[in-house]
């Protein structure tokens, strides 16, 4: 989904830059509440993992590929604000060192691939976790759906920039269905990778999954309970 230079005109790219900067500023503030001595290194690792996963283009229909965007995954693992920053770090490194994603398009890319995916992904995830029974399979299913939805949402946010600042005159009635169709397919890949990763971390350290912290609390109570009589006896 990395937008190259020249798809979106200069004024709208500048507006996107302002939106991205605002998103990062809000996330820098919000992330302080999410990050501590345990989660800070985990967030760094999440960024490295998202970078690695983004190199792995998987085939979807008809000579087309897709790769993980990672915003939903990062938001679920380390929190929505930190999630925005995780993907932003990846996008900045890709644009500056790997010539992937245009420099003038960096604002567009951060907006559609970091801000939108983390916000939509986390929103859907929390909503589902609230209505589903409290369990690890529920959290995994919620991660799947959240990631699936985040990709077409990102594609639509690209279309929104294209609608106001596209450098070509291809009608939206052509762009929207084509972008949505292929990105629903890519979203399935995103959903699989996200669900697999979230369920793996839930299996070993559920307390470290930001979006599922409520799940690990009952466990702690059960673990602590038998100790009480011993303490009283000693």
């Amino acid at each position: 989904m990395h937008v190259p230079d020249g798809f979106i005109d200069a004024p709208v790219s500048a507006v996107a830059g302002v939106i991205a900067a605002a998103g990062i500023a809000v996330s820098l503030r919000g992330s302080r509440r999410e990050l501590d001595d345990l989660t800070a290194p985990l967030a760094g690792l999440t960024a490295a993992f998202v970078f690695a996963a983004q190199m792995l283009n998987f085939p979807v229909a008809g000579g087309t590929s897709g790769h993980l965007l990672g915003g939903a995954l990062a938001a679920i693992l380390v929190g929505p604000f930190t999630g925005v920053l995780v993907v932003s770090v990846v996008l900045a490194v890709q644009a500056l060192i790997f010539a992937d994603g245009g420099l003038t398009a960096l604002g567009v890319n951060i907006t559609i691939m970091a801000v939108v995916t983390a916000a939509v992904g986390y929103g859907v995830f929390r909503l589902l976790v609230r209505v589903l029974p409290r369990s690890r399979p529920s959290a995994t299913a919620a991660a799947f759906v959240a990631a699936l939805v985040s990709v077409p949402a990102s594609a639509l946010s690209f279309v929104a920039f294209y609608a106001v600042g596209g450098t070509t005159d291809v009608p939206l009635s052509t762009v929207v269905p084509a972008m949505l169709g292929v990105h629903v397919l890519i979203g399935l890949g995103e959903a699989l990778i996200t669900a697999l990763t979230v369920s793996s971390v839930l299996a070993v350290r559920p307390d470290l999954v930001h979006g599922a912290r409520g799940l690990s609390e009952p466990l702690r109570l059960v673990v602590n309970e038998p100790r009480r009589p011993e303490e009283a006896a000693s």
Partner: protein
Amino acid sequence: MSLRRLLALGVLVAAVLAGIVSYYASSHPDGLERVAEDKGFNAEEKDHALGDSPLADYGVKGVADERASVGLSGIIGVGVVLVAGTGLFWMLRGRPDGGGEPAEPAGKTRA
């Protein structure tokens, strides 16, 4: 699993994915590239300003072997992102119980 062990395992997984598995990734255009090409909204696309940089397009300039070139660029990328990300998030972290407020001046610690 200890956090240290989880982190080590995670870094290993990321390094294997970027350093080895990446060679087998699909080289077809991604969803946006494909749609832009098919529908023609890439007509004004410009080459990347840093397209000649030593790691452009996930290869190491001067490394002829494709497998080594992609893998090495992936490992370098994982390293750069890991260091930059961990550094940033370590600076941003609040105190474990501090509700996100920046570290308070000394003297409030229990004595």
